[in-house]
């Protein structure tokens, strides 16, 4: 063994190097913790979160044309679209829409299948519940969209 590695070994250089790394990181500026409810992460625009059924902002009418493509596209078959034909306009009208978020894996296939941008996966991710009851979203819930949770003591 040549002398340099031996000396390095005796003087614990390898260990000191490691120690210096952890020591350097003690600066408070290095901390990356987000204190969650107080600090919110920045959610990307394309984030696939809580589903929402968009309505026309001017008229308040739903954008959904009840074509059922989302229900077809869904791998988990968790979307059910019910519609009836309006005798006057001869168009299908949405009667009920249910979306089971408890089984959803947020793959985004329904969103892509939607031809009118009615169904959208929004940026909201805070919709955990204490029981399974409210997890099947009906049309009202979907149209209301995300309700950001307010945290207070």
């Amino acid at each position: 063994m040549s002398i340099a590695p031996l000396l390095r070994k005796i003087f614990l250089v390898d260990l000191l190097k490691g120690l210096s790394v952890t020591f350097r990181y003690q600066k408070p500026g290095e901390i990356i913790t987000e204190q969650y409810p107080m600090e919110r992460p920045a959610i990307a625009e394309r984030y696939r979160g809580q589903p929402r059924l968009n309505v026309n902002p001017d008229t308040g009418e739903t954008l959904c044309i009840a074509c059922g493509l989302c229900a077809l596209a869904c791998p988990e078959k968790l979307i059910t679209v019910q519609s009836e034909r309006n005798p006057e306009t001869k168009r299908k009208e949405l009667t009920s829409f249910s979306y089971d978020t408890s089984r959803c894996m947020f793959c985004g296939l329904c969103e892509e299948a939607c031809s009118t941008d009615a169904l959208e996966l929004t940026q909201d991710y805070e919709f955990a519940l204490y029981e399974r009851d409210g997890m099947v979203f009906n049309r009202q819930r979907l149209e209301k969209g995300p309700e950001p949770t307010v945290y207070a003591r």
Partner: protein
Amino acid sequence: MGFLEFFYAKNITPGEAGNYTWATIYILVMFALASIAVMLMTWLERKIMAHMQIRLGPMRVGPHGLLQPIADAVKLLLKEDIVPTKADRIVYWLAPCAVMVIAFATYPIIPWGRAHAVTDVNIGVLFMLGVSSLGVLGIIMAGWASNSHYPLMGSLRSSAQMVSYEIAMGLAVVSAILMTSLQTGTGTLSMIGIVESQMAQKTWFVFNGWGLGFIAFVVFAIAMIAETNRAPFDLPEAESELVAGFHTEYSGFRWSLFFLAEYAAMIGVSAIAVTLWLGGWLRPFPNLLSGNTWDIAFGLFPALTFVVLGGVCIALAIKMPGIVQLRIQKFGMLAFGLLLFFIGVLFAVPGVRERVQDIYWFSLKIAIFMYLYIWYRATFPRYRFDQLMKVGWKVLLPTALGVLMGTALWGVLR
């Protein structure tokens, strides 16, 4: 009044003076302070390790998680006490008690100052080493009584480890004790005597003997980590291998006793190291920078530390964002800062100053050790069992033996 006068005037420990009242008070105070220190230690460990790991650590319970140890204690006390069905109940019950008692048994003779030990035992170091190595007994009891594979393996590892490192540790200690005999020709095993001998020789033993003291100190420092089962020698509780080692089957308050004992033992062995090599309660450069001015300057250190800490706390409190959720924390932090500040001011009062500074320097030296413990834990991987043995027997033991002989030689030649 004579009661207080004794404390203020005498420069000997209550044990030496035969003052039972004060001895009892000392024991109680020491036990209380040690418990607080252990709690503080758990908080500090989490905090410092978190910062090394670019995290924040506990932040929710109290300002910057200051009340986290209390919350933990409450949680652990309220937890269900689970005893495995096939456990040996009596031994299972005794094990945490044994560990705890043994860990705290070393405390009475730790010399926090010339007068700040319960008593001065003339075989102090021997007592410390003996008692602290008894800790393995509790661990073996725990591992055996749990009647489970992981604890059993953990306790086996632990016993082997403690026994092997005990030897290197003892040899390193002997070389330090050899040094105490230099001045007078008769060495001492008394903890207080060792510090006084360092005072007389005008040097800390770590700087003594052309670096031999330092090597002995390093050997001891490594062995004591192994002795207390801390990283990188934390095999008995290696969480990635043995889940939690010897205390896998323990929960709730019993588990917390192991936890407390671990920290108490850490402080205990650090106290030995400080006493033997780092000049115990002596302030830095007691000879070189002697004189009244320097005495006062160093005497102000405790006060300054507390004032600065208090100031930091107050600054942190002011810096905290003014959200509703943080209001309580903000006030708590402010109050804590002010408390520290006033303690600091109190420590600057002349009468108190002299009494406090011994304790301060001793605690500071231990605190450095504690920081090192945490630092090692955050940095190093864990040794494997055979490698641990290899380090113990093939590296530390020969080194310690060599140092011992070297010290003896040096003492003769000097």
